[in-house]
């Protein structure tokens, strides 16, 4: 009986490994590690304006101030993607890159929702602090306060 169970467990082991491998790939594709709602809150701020063009221009100006190079921007979709990569092998500075996608969309009648999602060294950024820093920088360019979204 015990031996039977052990055999069954042994047989199940490769299956488990297989399942684990699948889960990892899916984790990377959809990045399900952090709670989606929690992450969305960390990455989003609401601004008291409905001027999409002005908001997108402020986002682009902020990214340019921060030394980012723009990869693409689409007004209709309200999407801006930029990256900052630096390396200097002579100065012993290892290659590192930070990519950010920022989206702008209406939130109710009187607000715009700005959401930023960053990727650093091939991993998603899930800490609140870097986003806080980005929105602090953006606030200055917007001349508007960034409201936390619940």
């Amino acid at each position, binding site marked *: 009986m015990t031996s039977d169970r052990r055999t069954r467990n042994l047989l199940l082991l490769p299956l488990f490994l297989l399942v684990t491998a699948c889960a990892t790939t899916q984790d990377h594709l959809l990045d399900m590690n952090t709670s989606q709602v929690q992450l969305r809150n960390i990455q989003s701020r609401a601004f008291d304006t409905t001027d999409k063009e002005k908001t997108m221009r402020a986002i682009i100006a902020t990214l340019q101030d921060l030394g980012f*190079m723009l*990869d693409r921007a689409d007004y209709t979709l309200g999407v801006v993607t930029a990256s900052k990569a630096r390396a200097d092998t002579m100065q012993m500075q290892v290659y590192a890159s930070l990519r950010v996608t920022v989206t702008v969309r209406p939130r109710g009648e009187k607000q715009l929702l700005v959401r930023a999602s960053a990727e650093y060294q091939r991993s998603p950024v899930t800490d609140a602090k870097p986003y806080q820093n980005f929105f602090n920088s953006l606030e200055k360019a917007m001349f508007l306060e960034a409201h936390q979204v619940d």
Partner: protein
Amino acid sequence: MAVLLLMTGCAAVTLDKDLNLTPEMFAQRQMQTRRFDTTDEQKILKTCAALLQDTGFTIDESEAKLGILIASKERDATDAAQWAVFIVGSFFGVAIPPDKDQIMKAFVTTRPVGGSGSQVAVRVVFERIVFDTEHRLKKIEPLNDPKMYQSFFEKLSKALFLEAHDI
């Protein structure tokens, strides 16, 4: 030695510092921006596109509605001084492969400024990616020589028949 080890692990971009505005970034902005007395932002953007093309750049991305142009070009990065160091270094067995190729990038933004948008501010940022003779990434750096920016804006004002003002 310990310092050297510490420096080896130093990432060139970090989450702590690269999303914060610093006073140096404002100084950069000043060097990279000029204002022109015109209300026609689209005309400035078109002239910038033509100027980039004149200077050998290829336009990679643009969004006129937001005042954006991104361009790049691939050029030779051979530096005679580096080759001299390389040849001398080879004798002592400490040869550092010299620079070979580089990709230069330009990121132009325009935006209406001043009372009722009476002026247009143009900002350009240049950076380059350098590869050595063995096609390995050697450097990604912003180009911070004020002369490059001065020269870009001089050419732009000539093309626009407008005077460029410092911000």
